[in-house]
């Protein structure tokens, strides 16, 4: 599949470079805001304007997970994002225009219209596309980790999944296999407390996904999924463990899905007070407050970052809308390798 030519996004802004924590905060904010804004445009503008084909799955309120974990990955590490991990694509250099085109079913999307929404991947960027039967990624991620170990690489694989996926047989088989083989795999659970309309208490009888770690003989920890720094440091511990050949490591990120399952779902089954409680814990607002409090930024800096990203997003949408739909003659292409 021919790569779509895109200009790379400007790198996230750096501060003076004297304070690595401040630099990290800027990078967190850059990617979290980019993810939030791209998803807001898709879900709240383009979808309502009828420009999006099919479903929309956002990670609103959960951005700290893909950003915090994603920024611990080395370029040759392999990522298996879930449908709530858009920031991982940006961290790997996917341009927002490719994401808009993907959602619009245009050839400029990562799958050239062959698949939609968050079903996208690119092995050149070491991003593996999910399939809809959530949880199926776990054994496959174990296999990618196996390949890295097989080749004696120091690289590792990261797999992302929600609380719903933990009920699948594939979840068990994948973790167990990775644990037995001591494969370099970081397991990232986005526990946002709902799988479509199913709340946690109808999903599992144990209190935490992390409680299952000991059952597989692997370390597991619980982290505040709305705190990018906390997620980042947990992911660093996990990645270090995996890189040292000690096997898989599970991180459970506690968070909340600040939307329906998808754009068509008003989530009326979620008690309103939960949205209010979790809105106060918004990972972007928290990062802003921290940065202002520590003097890493002032309001003007933040507004300048947001304005610059919004402008790039406007241009990306325009590009995507001008990307053509695939020609029907492409229907039968690439079922198999061209002979």
């Amino acid at each position, binding site marked *: *599949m021919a790569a779509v030519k895109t200009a790379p996004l400007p790198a996230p802004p750096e501060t003076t470079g004297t304070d690595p924590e401040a630099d990290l905060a800027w990078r967190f904010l850059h990617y979290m805001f980019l993810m939030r804004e791209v998803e807001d445009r898709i879900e709240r503008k383009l979808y309502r304007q009828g420009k999006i084909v099919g479903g929309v799955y956002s990670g609103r309120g959960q951005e700290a997970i893909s950003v915090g974990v994603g920024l611990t990955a080395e370029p040759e590490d*392999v990522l298996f994002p879930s449908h709530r991990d858009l920031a991982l694509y940006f961290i790997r250099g996917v341009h927002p225009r490719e994401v808009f085109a993907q959602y619009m079913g245009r050839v400029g999307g*990562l*799958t050239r219209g*062959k*698949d939609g929404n968050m*079903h*996208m*991947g*690119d*092995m050149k960027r070491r991003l*593996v*596309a999910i*399939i*809809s*039967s959530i949880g*199926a990624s*776990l*054994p*496959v*991620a*174990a*296999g*990618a*980790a*196996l*390949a*890295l170990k*097989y080749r004696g690489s120091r690289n590792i*694989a990261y797999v992302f999944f929600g609380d719903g996926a933990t009920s699948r*047989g*594939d979840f068990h*088989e*994948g973790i*167990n*296999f990775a644990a*037995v*083989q001591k494969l370099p795999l970081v397991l990232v659970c986005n526990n946002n407390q709902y799988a479509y309309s199913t709340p946690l208490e109808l999903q599992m009888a144990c209190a935490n996904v992390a409680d299952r770690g000991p059952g597989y003989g692997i370390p597991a920890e619980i982290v505040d999924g709305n705190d990018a720094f906390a997620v980042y440091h947990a992911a660093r511990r996990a990645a270090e463990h995996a890189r040292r050949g000690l096997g898989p490591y599970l991180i459970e990120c506690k968070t909340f899905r600040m939307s329906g399952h998808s754009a068509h779902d008003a989530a009326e089954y979620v008690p309103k007070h939960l949205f209010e409680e979790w809105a106060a814990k918004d990972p972007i607002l928290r990062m802003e407050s921290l940065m202002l409090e520590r003097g890493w930024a002032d309001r003007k800096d933040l507004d300048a970052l947001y304005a610059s990203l919004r402008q790039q997003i406007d241009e990306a949408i325009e590009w995507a809308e001008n990307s053509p739909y695939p020609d029907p003659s492409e229907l039968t292409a*690439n*079922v*198999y*390798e061209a002979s």
Partner: protein
Amino acid sequence: MLVTYLEAIRQGIWEEMERDPDVFLLGEDVGVYGGPFKISKGMLEHFGARRVIDTPLAEAAIAGAAIGAALMGLRPIAEIQYADFLSCAFDQIVNFAAKCRYRWGAAVPMVVRAPCGGGVHAGPFHSQCNEAWFVHTPGLKVVMPATPHDAKGLIKASIRDNDPVIYFEHKALYRRIKQEIPEGDYTVPIGPAAVVREGRDLSIITYGAMVWVAQEVADTLDQEGVSVEIVDVRTLLPLDEATILASVRKTSRVLVLHEATLTGGVGGEIAARIAEKAFDCLDAPVVRVAAPDTPVPFSPPLEEAFLPNAAKVLEKARWLLAY
């Protein structure tokens, strides 16, 4: 070199593992035990535990791990101990492996080996010919060799192929069938069917263990002055329509034979293509001989009643010749 069907598969895997360091084997009991049928006997000792991996009893993990390794450019051979257990890996194979290239351009160069077939008194869960499940899945390739020559050539071609291949090997042929095969490296391409017996009066289109039943039938009819042509389909997906249709055009009478159950079987697809594209050449209706639509039974008289055999095929062939 005179080898069994089993030895031919074993040689093919062994030679490919020697040739390409990215080829490895994973599955249940394939290492220390050498596989339940001893296909991988000695491989652990020779290639080491890195390349011959004993897995937990978990078919989705085996198939999924093979997919992940294949996405990374390795060439895994995943052994599913019995084809019947492919059901446990179904989602991984049909939804993950089969659709990667089409959806996002990612190659999955893996082989899933699946010992299939009845006649070994193994009951409903160790005897099925379930190839049709996969023939209905675009993105997969499906092969089922009948001879030691093709078993070796097709396993090597499957390992070298850049798409996922389901390789069905028939258990009843493992030690029963011996054949001279060339020394050293050769492949049998995925795709082309083979005319394994030339004839004028009747075509039998078949594959797997039923090729040998067809030969028995052809021998019997030959003594009665009837000349039978046998097409061994070998690759079920993609189907070599041209070879099948050429045989039909030559003989004008056609019997489609497989061990799998009748309804929804590959024979229906073959019959439909013949009806669509060679109807004007037919002197008689297309006839199918297949197992009845039941699970594979255990007790010998029941299993014998279930499996197609020479007597059942002869009866249909004679009806067809008299039509």
